[in-house]
């Protein structure tokens, strides 16, 4: 199996499908565009499945490696591969793409082909980010994925979409430009190589490590996003169409966190140790402070956006305690957040499509008119709050467990977020779903249709599966995470 360029397929299948969808042209062919997009998304998922079935869990290194010269002038290679850290995200991304195509099925009536094409192309680009083993290849995918997202927010977004689209683009571009300079510095230091795996072995003095770490930190912190560079996220989420929010929350935020594991920790381990206090502090601020910010939101999408920041705080916290438990917990949290936040945004989208409001105050008593929806929304809210037996619990629990070993007060601060998280999610749920029917809009609501039920059902199954039986996921990560930790523990200063 591994003789086939599986990863290239995972990257280029959705992109080509996107171009085909684009070719269907105007909205007269909208049904065709939708069908083609769905077929492309499903095909995109199918080609990634061999990555999981053929994956050797005992091996910590890169698998399914592809290596071709791309730009020999600068020794840039088309170098792809997955390990236990990245493989699951490729699958998650390809899976979420199907959800996104389905989520826009009826809602998007304008420029249908372009909408679906943008998501398919972005899906391919993001698979490229997760699998690149060459610094510039990574950067190219990383940057290029801004273009479709910019268009998605700007063309199909809400009233303040232009501001949000610009903010999103410029914020992330700012981060990644400094990252690019760090890549060039490493290129010079390593005597002319852009290979990430070679950089892992490259000895660097501490002073330089600190600067590189900071450049990485800015790029990835903006993308994660970490406090205090998180302000683009609520704007982008609120204005983006439902599909855009799902992709942003489920996949795009993971890119930054993934960057920490692929770049920061192994390339500059000493600086990572040196500055771990800073990252942990920022993460705790995100977890606690942003949790409280979420509590006072009146807009549902904003609330979930802030809760995403808090959840991603857990992820960065888990990374920088340098323990297997912490990193695996953080990875599980990333996957779980992919399902749960995707589902949360979809639920809000379901209500928004019917009432055209995201304000909590405009709802109340939705359970009376949408019982099926209320039940599923309940599950995801619980998962968002980190209730045991849902996927949300596993990751947070593992990170807190790792934190207890690391430092009691860090664990204490992190654990308070379980309470705050439960508070803002369940309080929102209570105000929206329970109580008397608030107004005639709510009274006229119709329950979810089969398409919506299918999407939420599949996501619910995933959430419960990860919550009850996380073994298959952690098993994949184990060898790679151990490799990574061994690597991080060795000093690179000579």
């Amino acid at each position: 199996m591994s003789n086939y360029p599986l990863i290239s397929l995972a990257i280029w299948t959705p992109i080509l499908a996107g171009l085909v969808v684009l070719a269907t042209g105007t909205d007269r062919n909208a049904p065709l565009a939708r069908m083609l997009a769905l077929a492309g998304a499903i095909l995109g998922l199918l080609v990634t499945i061999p990555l999981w079935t053929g994956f050797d869990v005992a091996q910590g290194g890169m698998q399914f490696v592809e290596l071709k010269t791309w730009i020999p002038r600068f020794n840039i290679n088309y170098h792809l591969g997955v390990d236990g850290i990245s493989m699951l995200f490729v699958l998650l991304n390809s899976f979420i793409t199907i959800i996104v195509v389905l989520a826009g099925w009826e809602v998007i009536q304008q420029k249908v082909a372009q909408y679906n094409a943008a998501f398919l192309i972005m899906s391919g680009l993001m698979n490229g980010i997760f699998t690149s083993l060459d610094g510039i290849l990574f950067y190219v995918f990383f940057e290029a994925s801004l273009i479709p997202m910019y268009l998605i927010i700007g063309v199909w977004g809400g009233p303040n979409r232009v501001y949000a689209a610009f903010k999103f683009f410029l914020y992330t571009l700012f981060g990644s430009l400094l990252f690019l300079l760090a890549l060039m510095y490493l290129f010079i230091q390593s005597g002319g190589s852009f290979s990430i795996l070679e950089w892992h072995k490259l000895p660097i003095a501490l002073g330089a490590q600190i600067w590189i770490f900071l450049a990485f930190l800015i790029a990835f912190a903006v993308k994660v996003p970490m406090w205090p560079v998180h302000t683009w996220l609520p704007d982008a989420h609120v204005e983006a169409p439902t599909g855009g929010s799902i992709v942003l929350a489920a996949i795009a935020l993971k890119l930054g966190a993934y960057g920490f594991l692929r770049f920061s920790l192994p390339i500059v381990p000493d600086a990572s140790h040196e500055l771990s206090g800073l990252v942990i502090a920022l993460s705790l601020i995100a977890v606690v402070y942003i949790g409280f910010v979420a509590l006072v939101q009146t807009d549902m999408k904003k609330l979930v956006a802030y809760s995403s920041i808090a959840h991603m705080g857990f992820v960065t916290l888990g990374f920088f305690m340098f323990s297997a438990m912490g990193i695996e917990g953080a990875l599980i949290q990333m996957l779980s957040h992919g399902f749960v936040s995707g589902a949360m945004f979809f639920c809000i989208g379901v209500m928004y499509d019917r009432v055209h409001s995201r304000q909590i105050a405009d709802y109340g008593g939705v359970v009376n008119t949408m019982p099926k929806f209320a039940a599923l929304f309940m599950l995801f809210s619980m998962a968002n709050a980190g209730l045991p037996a849902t996927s949300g619990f596993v990751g947070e629990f593992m990170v807190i467990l790792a934190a207890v070993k690391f430092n009691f007060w860090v664990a204490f601060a992190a654990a308070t977020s379980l309470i705050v998280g439960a508070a803002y999610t369940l309080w929102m749920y209570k105000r929206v779903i329970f109580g008397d029917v608030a107004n005639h809009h709510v009274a006229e609501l119709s329950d979810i249709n089969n398409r919506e039920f299918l999407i939420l059902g599949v996501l619910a199954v995933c959430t419960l599966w990860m919550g009850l039986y996380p073994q298959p996921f952690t098993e994949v990560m184990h060898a790679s995470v151990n490799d990574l930790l061994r690597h991080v523990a060795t000093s690179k200063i000579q």
Partner: protein
Amino acid sequence: MFDNFVVPNLLPAAPELFLAAMALIILLVDLVVKDSRRTVTFTLTQIALVGCAAIQFYTSTGEVVYTFSNMFVDDLMSDLLKLFLYMTMIIVLFYSRGYVLDREAMNKGEYYVLALFATLGMMVMISANHFVTIYMGLELLSLSLYAMVAMNRDSVVSTEAAMKYFVLGALASGLLLYGMSMIYGATGTLEITGVAEKLYGGGANKTLLVFGLVFLVSGLAFKLGVVPFHMWVPDVYHGAPTSVTLLIGSAPKLAAFAIVMRLLVNGLITMAADWQNMLIILSVLSMAVGNLAAIAQTNLKRMLAYSAISHMGFMLLGITTGVVSGDARYALNAYSSAMFYVIAYVLMTTGSFGMILMMSRAGFEADNIEDFKGLNKRSPWFAGIMLMLMFSMAGVPFFIGFFAKFSVLQAVVAAGYMWLAIVAVLFSLIGAFYYLRVVKVMYFDAPVDDSPLTASTDMRLLISANGLAVAILGMFPQVIMSLCAYALLRSL
């Protein structure tokens, strides 16, 4: 009297001679061509350019050959730049055609003949190895362009732009000549390679040389349009008929790059420490002023003018990093990056002005950013092409603009100027804003007029090819990158 007269080796200058002859022939032929049959002139012009390219290609030896008593040089760098020059001119004239046909005052044979003379001027600049040759080429180019800017003579804006261009251009030529004369005074030769030898030997009057250098760099800065010598750029870009703006904004950048290389690198490399510092200041100022001023523009041509200023500033970065504290190890890397940058820039800017030309009709210029409103609704394909061009200009991958910026930046980082790289990167972030705004107008806004585009098929095809080239060369930049590196390796 003519005892020691030797017929110079004409072969290295064969394309120039051919083009000069063709330009004169076309001028004569055009006398008998009626206005309605101007296609004849157009076709002959294109044939002349294609002929030049063929001659260039087949006479290229890859060696450095001097002729006309060392006044003229033919090396691989000039061959490559000239080939790109012909290609650019061919595209430029194709783009201009519809625009010129729609405007009576411009639909004259002179338009094409002047374009050919401008090309000839640029070719002479590229191959110059003598101060007088450089000046001759430069003036041939400039005088042709002054006339072309004023060609739409009933337009007040164009006439004003032509006047401005002429006065400031003459001033710049004066500065350049003054600098040349001082360097002549210090070294006793006008030959560029001779100057280099003289300086290498030492003993030249340093004060005189530095004064000469300052004037020389100022003159070059005028021609490149970098801050603080940029005042003419926005006005001329804005005021000139769009087809002429396209010409001014594209091919001459190749020639300007060539004379910078000839004068500063071939001639005055021993003074690199002096001129590099000047170029750093020019470059940082250009990126700052260009990018910041572009934000405020509502006219697309003016915006692209400021963007040109910032791009030329960025390109200069590559030239400033060739020699690091006397060590020329990075020279090839740095200069070839700058060359790649110029070629990539010319490709992008040709496409961008081409889009304006394609959108314009008789009596409608389409040169305001607002005119692109809702283009995605009117023509998704061309909105996509413009999107690629804009993102490429902003330096976003997978487009060629990214690799242009990348190669210059890595040269800057390799030379150890990290602070300069950070400055460059921050200004390109600011620059991204106004390119994004064009995309915003096309995609996020509703169209003002719903009329479909009226451009001719060949125009559509060519502009599509131009846009796709920006994307495809962005995915496979290796070819041009290594061509530049190889050409410079064989020429320096």
